[in-house]
């Protein structure tokens, strides 16, 4: 992955080239972490395009911005087109000068237009300037692995991989968007096009957009089809998934640098590593996070997989204290408030990978979405059965098993029934699957300051989340709908964004996601529901694929949510100085986001009860602390002056 940035401006000889060049250089310089190998800019008549490069494919020839000499069409591209080898064969009329996937993208655009995105197997965000009709095209991959934000001016558009480039270019002065904050507190992340910042929008996953000089036309181009279920048996399903997963891994091992893998010790990443190790002939390097706290640590399972697959393994143990120290950098890169500390260890892990000399890793993200591994899917299924047959008592027996890893599983059944009984009168409502979760996290909104609460009075994050779904997805069956809600909210906004791309690129490491190959998502959508979730057993087809490949104990493991320590990291005796400073009443009042009196009470409570802090209070504490970091890093302080000297500018 790399960093891209650029903007349009009024064409003509009067245009102040020097000022535009300076702007572009500042934007690109602010993204150097995404592309430490080269930072280049190209000034054309009416557009500036910039690129920070992390060289992974065609190290010598893949320089960007790339321009087609004949048409003048110019491209900046972040990400990978994994099937570039196959596409190149279909584009044999194009006079290729490099062997990069960037040039394949350019040739594909010139040959097939923007609809070529449908032919890509990849993860990408790109901008194409077409001087023939003076339009700027933007596009983002089907699941939103690569980030892309933009700001609209009166007659111009600026875009970048990260918002900080827009601020560095002077297109916006950073201000927290109360709607984005409310969405972060409820849904764990803003829903595209909303971001954490006012006036900064995100291009949603699976969309392309065309800027014609006056307006931006955004179009969705892909979503899985859940209505074409094929009645295959379990064995056939497993064979199909195994074959396609193997191919998805094969394509993602394509690179001119070594590719490693993250290994959590769960089924998904272990299966992935097994395929990769087989294809690499035994040279796979794997990387893990470990915690001192036994309740969070998965080391035993990681070691078991490492022994079985014989990978060369490195683990980094992360102390609670370290998480507090990592959070400022994590928020600076994530550019959003986070409700859990989990991204911080991911930042430490990507630094380990970087220090070990690797720049690409495979990760197992996505399997829980497409094969219905999350507790959420079981919860939706049970609640749906309950809503339709309220007199049957069977669902009651299942409630304690819904979230076995959460402490409330031990609650009396009558109380659990109240917790899970939300919205039962209308199980067909589009957000039914997520009502329990979102009403729980929505409690964080009560900490908002009066002015922010007023500003978001009309914002219903659930409506915003549903707004990200197509009409067809809103109407599809319950669990498919739940998957699409995950794929349009938590997955791109939090898991692939705050916890994925942003933490990886902070250390100049590219993540690759075989389970999020759009062909595999389409296949999973065609499989019968029972192959994914039968009774209360999740990801059945993946377990079948893993049989014989992984130790039996890994196959039998229930889903183990990845979590990191919280409370004492921020309010206990080991809390870092920034937390005390930013959680003080003065700082909370200065930021204006939260009610200072409530925050003080929360901090006191966290100090008093330590690790016994309730889940809800712990999430509140992390959300508030990271919102304060966001404010301090972007709003309170001016954009950091980046060293623009290494950015090489070219004008044409």
């Amino acid at each position, binding site marked *: 992955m790399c960093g891209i940035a650029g903007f349009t401006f009024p064409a003509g000889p009067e245009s102040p080239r020097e000022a535009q060049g300076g702007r572009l250089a500042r934007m690109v310089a602010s993204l150097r972490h995404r592309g430490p190998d080269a930072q280049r800019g190209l000034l054309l008549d009416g557009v500036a395009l910039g690129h920070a490069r992390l060289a992974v494919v065609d190290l010598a020839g893949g320089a960007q911005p790339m321009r087609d000499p004949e048409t003048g069409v110019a491209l900046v591209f972040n990400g990978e087109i994994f099937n570039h080898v196959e596409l190149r064969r279909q584009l044999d009329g194009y006079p290729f000068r490099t062997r990069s996937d960037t040039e394949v993208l350019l040739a594909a655009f010139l040959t097939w237009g923007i609809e070529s995105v449908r032919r890509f197997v990849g993860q990408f965000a790109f901008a194409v300037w077409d001087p023939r009709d003076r339009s700027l095209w933007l596009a983002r991959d089907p699941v939103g692995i690569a980030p892309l934000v933009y700001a609209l001016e009166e007659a111009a558009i600026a875009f970048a991989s990260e918002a900080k480039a827009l601020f560095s270019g002077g297109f916006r002065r950073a201000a927290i968007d109360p709607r984005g904050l409310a969405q972060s507190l409820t849904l764990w992340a803003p829903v595209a096009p909303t971001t954490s910042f006012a006036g900064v929008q995100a291009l949603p996953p699976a969309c392309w957009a065309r800027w014609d000089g006056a307006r931006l036309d955004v179009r969705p181009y892909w979503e899985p089809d859940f209505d074409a279920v094929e009645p295959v048996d379990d064995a056939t399903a497993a064979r199909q998934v195994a074959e396609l997963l193997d191919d998805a891994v094969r394509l993602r091992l394509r690179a001119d640098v070594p590719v490693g893998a993250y290994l959590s010790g769960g089924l998904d990443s272990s299966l992935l590593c097994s395929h990769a190790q087989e294809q690499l002939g035994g040279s796979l390097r794997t990387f893990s996070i470990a915690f001192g706290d036994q309740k969070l640590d998965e080391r035993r399972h990681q070691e078991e997989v490492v022994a079985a697959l014989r990978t060369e393994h490195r683990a980094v143990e992360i102390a609670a204290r370290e998480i507090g120290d990592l959070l400022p950098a994590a928020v600076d890169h994530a550019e959003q408030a986070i409700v859990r500390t989990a991204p911080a260890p991911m930042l430490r892990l990507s630094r380990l990978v970087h220090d070990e000399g690797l720049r690409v890793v495979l990760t197992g993200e996505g399997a829980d979405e497409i094969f219905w591994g999350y507790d959420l899917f079981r919860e939706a299924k049970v609640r749906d059965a309950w809503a339709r047959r309220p007199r049957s008592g069977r669902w009651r027996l299942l409630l304690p098993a819904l979230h076995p890893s959460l*402490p*409330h599983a031990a609650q*009396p059944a009558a109380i*659990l029934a*109240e917790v899970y*009984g939300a919205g039962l009168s209308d199980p067909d409502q589009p957000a039914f699957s997520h009502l329990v979760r979102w*009403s729980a996290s929505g409690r964080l909104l009560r900490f908002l300051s009066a002015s922010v609460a007023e500003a978001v009075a009309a914002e219903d994050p659930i409506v915003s989340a549903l707004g990200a779904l197509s009409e067809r997805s809103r109407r599809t069956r319950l669990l498919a709908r739940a998957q699409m809600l995950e794929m349009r909210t938590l997955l791109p906004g939090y898991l692939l964004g705050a916890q994925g791309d942003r933490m990886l690129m902070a250390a100049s490491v590219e993540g690759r996601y075989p389970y999020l190959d759009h062909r595999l998502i389409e296949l999973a959508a065609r499989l019968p529901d029972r192959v994914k979730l039968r009774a209360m057993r999740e990801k059945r087809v993946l377990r079948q694929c893993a049989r014989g490949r992984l130790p039996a104990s890994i196959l039998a493991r229930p889903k183990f949510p990845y979590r990191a320590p919280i409370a004492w990291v921020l309010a206990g005796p080991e809390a870092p100085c920034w937390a005390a400073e930013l959680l003080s009443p003065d700082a909370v009042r200065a930021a204006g986001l939260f009610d200072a009196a409530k925050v003080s009470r929360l901090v006191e409570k966290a100090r008093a009860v330590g690790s016994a802090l309730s889940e809800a209070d712990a999430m509140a504490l992390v959300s508030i602390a990271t919102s304060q970091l966001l404010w301090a890093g972007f709003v309170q302080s001016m954009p950091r002056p980046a060293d623009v000297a290494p950015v090489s500018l070219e004008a044409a």
Partner: protein
Amino acid sequence: MRQGEVGGAASGLRERIRAFIVETFFVDGFGDEDSFLARGIIDSMGLVQLVTFLEHDLGIRVDDDELLPENLDSLARVTAFAGRKLGR
């Protein structure tokens, strides 16, 4: 709910419980009859804190079979339950 009992002692009890809930769960406006769980005022772990408060601060012994929404899931219900247990 024993509406007839809204006298001095019951209302003092109710205000004490309300103050605990406001302090502990950072919630401002809620009605006496609002369901804690359905309205998201308290989550199920929060009910455990509420029970601890009833036991430690009010000196009420809550048996396992009394951990029911009917006894705990609104200010009015908790007040009535606590009032019964205290013999008021």
